[in-house]
């Protein structure tokens, strides 16, 4: 075990820092609609032009081909530079793109990958359904083969950015008679196809990126199927461990900053006794100390996960431990922020806005649900790491 970065890694860090310092957008990221989409794509384009698009993608597909350790360095510097959240580019860069790289055919890769990297298109995910949440394999959106097309009818839900997307990674049921994992197909859906209707779902965090998507006999060319018909479950699983592993490294790094920002707030704000700073309140001080400790442990656990990844090449079920601790710690931090801010916390400030503790607090309720609920993560940890019976 050691904490030393190699000379190459130090040089890489310098290079990243210099580039980010010169190119990170100064203006705040818009939170909604076309201007948000334009902002996210422009930032993606800037990164592409600077040679920083697809840092985890292999270089043969136009990515940067960084090792996990270099990705960590990138995200550390990204957070330090105050660079904007990836936003509507998340699915294309971290999910759709990597899935195409793993399972797409040459035509699909040649068409879509450069467009994702260049910031020309927004992708969204069509996995969950009203009746298929944690039990994702129970999805029912029906797809019938008609000539050289799939005809899709059904409903998808919790699709972030569907209303500003060009493409969607869509899971559909192509064989209703097969066992549930065996009748699913992974297909690329053009979001401008006739028969698609998206409806935003207002959330408790007051952001409107969340959507429900309705499909009424939507025709998708069979050439958009990734992998084989009825083999979509394995295609979807090829990137799920990625999402639970290094895919949210940026958020873990951001979490340490939240803690230190909150401690700084507690030093300047008047505490519950109306006289002394909040940090002088014994209970608040203890809770702040504990989240500082937990954030440190999460960071160390991330380093351990990356080290494991460098040796074994895959995140493995340990990624669920990281995800579970991250999401519960995040909630504790923002719950504590509400107590540190006192009555000021009641003034609503949007998610990810400057001083936006209250909006992000409301957003934090999603962290133990999105990307696999904490209950599902605990099942994975119990069964795959501890060997408990199913």
């Amino acid at each position, binding site marked *: *075990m050691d904490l030393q*970065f190699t000379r190459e890694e130090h040089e890489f860090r310098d290079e990243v820092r210099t580039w980010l310092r010169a190119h990170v957008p100064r203006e705040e990221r818009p939170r909604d609609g076309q201007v948000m989409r334009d902002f996210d794509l422009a930032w993606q384009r800037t990164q592409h032009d600077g040679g920083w698009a697809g840092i985890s993608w292999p270089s043969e597909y136009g990515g940067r081909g960084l090792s996990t*350790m270099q990705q960590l360095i990138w995200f550390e510097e990204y957070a330090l530079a105050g660079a904007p959240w990836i936003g509507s580019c998340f699915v294309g860069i971290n999910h759709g793109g990597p899935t195409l790289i793993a399972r797409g055919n040459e035509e699909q890769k040649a068409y879509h990958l450069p467009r994702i990297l260049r910031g020309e298109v927004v992708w969204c995910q069509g996995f969950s359904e009203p009746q298929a949440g944690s039990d994702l394999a129970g999805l029912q959106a029906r797809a019938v083969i008609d000539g050289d097309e799939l005809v899709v009818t059904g409903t998808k839900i919790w699709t972030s950015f569907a209303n500003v997307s060009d493409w969607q990674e869509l899971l559909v049921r192509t064989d209703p008679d097969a066992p549930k994992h065996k009748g699913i197909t992974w297909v690329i859906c053009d979001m401008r196809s006739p028969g698609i209707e998206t409806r935003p779902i207002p959330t408790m965090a007051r952001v409107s990126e969340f959507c429900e998507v309705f499909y009424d006999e939507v025709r998708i060319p069979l050439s958009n199927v990734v992998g084989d018909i009825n083999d979509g479950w394995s295609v979807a699983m090829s990137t799920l461990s990625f999402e639970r592993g290094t895919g949210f490294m940026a958020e873990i790094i951001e979490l340490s900053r939240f803690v230190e920002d909150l401690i700084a707030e507690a030093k300047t704000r008047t505490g519950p006794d109306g006289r002394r700073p909040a940090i002088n309140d014994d209970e608040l001080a203890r809770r702040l*100390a504990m989240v*500082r400790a937990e954030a*440190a442990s999460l960071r160390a*656990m991330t380093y*351990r996960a990356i080290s*494991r990844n460098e040796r074994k090449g895959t995140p493995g079920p340990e990624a669920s431990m990281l995800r579970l*601790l991250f999401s519960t710690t995040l909630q504790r931090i923002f719950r504590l922020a509400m107590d540190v801010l006192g009555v000021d916390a009641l003034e609503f400030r949007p998610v990810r806005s400057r001083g936006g503790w209250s909006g992000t607090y409301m957003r934090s309720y999603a962290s133990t649900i999105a990307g696999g609920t904490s209950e599902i993560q605990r099942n994975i940890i119990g069964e795959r790491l501890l060997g408990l019976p199913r």
Partner: protein
Amino acid sequence: MDLMPSAEQDEITASVSAFLTKELAPQPRFAEVLPPPALDRPLLTRMAELGWFGLGLPEQLGGVGYGLVEEVLVFRELGRHSAPGPLLAMCLGARVAALAGAAGTAGAADIAARIMAARAVVGWARLPSEAAQRPTGDRSEPVEVMLFDTTGADYVLVMGTHDALLYDATAFRDRHAATCLDATVAMSRAVLLTNAAPVAIVGGHESIGARSRVLAAAFAVGMAEATRDLSAMYATQREQFGKPIGVHQGVKHRCADMAVRAEASFALACYAALVVDGLGADAAMQADAALAVALDAAQRNAADTVQVHGGMGFTWEHAAHRFVERTHVLDEMMGGSRRVLADLISRDGPNL
């Protein structure tokens, strides 16, 4: 950067584990009031022969020359076995004496050599927090202390907030044996005399306080791992309603949470050890955080283990209570987790 153990480090873990599995005495038979445990000198001698008490000391000071992270691996195994005896005091006492000797304190190097060979035994004194914060020599009144594992001890270690002090055992008077919550720990109340002079002192700049917290954290990590494993094994074997209880999410999820606490606290204990050894600016903060997280993990995992085992977990025969008890002893030896959290929040943040 690599936070996974090397092959050599795995070898250390395996050999320590094998030794402890073979050598440790069974727990005491039940009695409402148990006699104070005797010091197992032969066991200490065998541990000394393996170099455990000088593991992290440089070879020119008579040690083995490993880093703090290797000591973490040893103390984690000791925690897994909830090993009894003055092991933390021996390890830190040897360091205090060796460093003081290297800095010119007469006789200290010899004391260090005797401790490392287990020819001298070191116990542990827990000062009231207010007294512990006062620097050395600023003690105008006798201090009431709690002693741990000082039966047959030649020296007693005091971990102050600023300094670490090694006293001759005769500096502690008016000893009254107390029955410890943990039947494997010898405990007594005593008074540290005003005029007592330490035989060795190490200042805070040697990060001795951070080292002590990291090692205590490692012991707690071992306990959190052992209780996780006990629970997972029992949840797999014990059947009710015709199936293993681990099938049920109420039990499975409790075990999963134990696994996360164990993993997080182990990762941070290793990380903090490397930061302390590397003289990182945030070493003290990371050490505090490591101990806070590990004590929390050990305490909650021990409590969960009692619960997962149902009635069996409440019996004397089962090991669960030993982990509950030892966690509280470790917590108080280190000044109490509230003290640790107070220190943690008073420091600068981590190097991000």
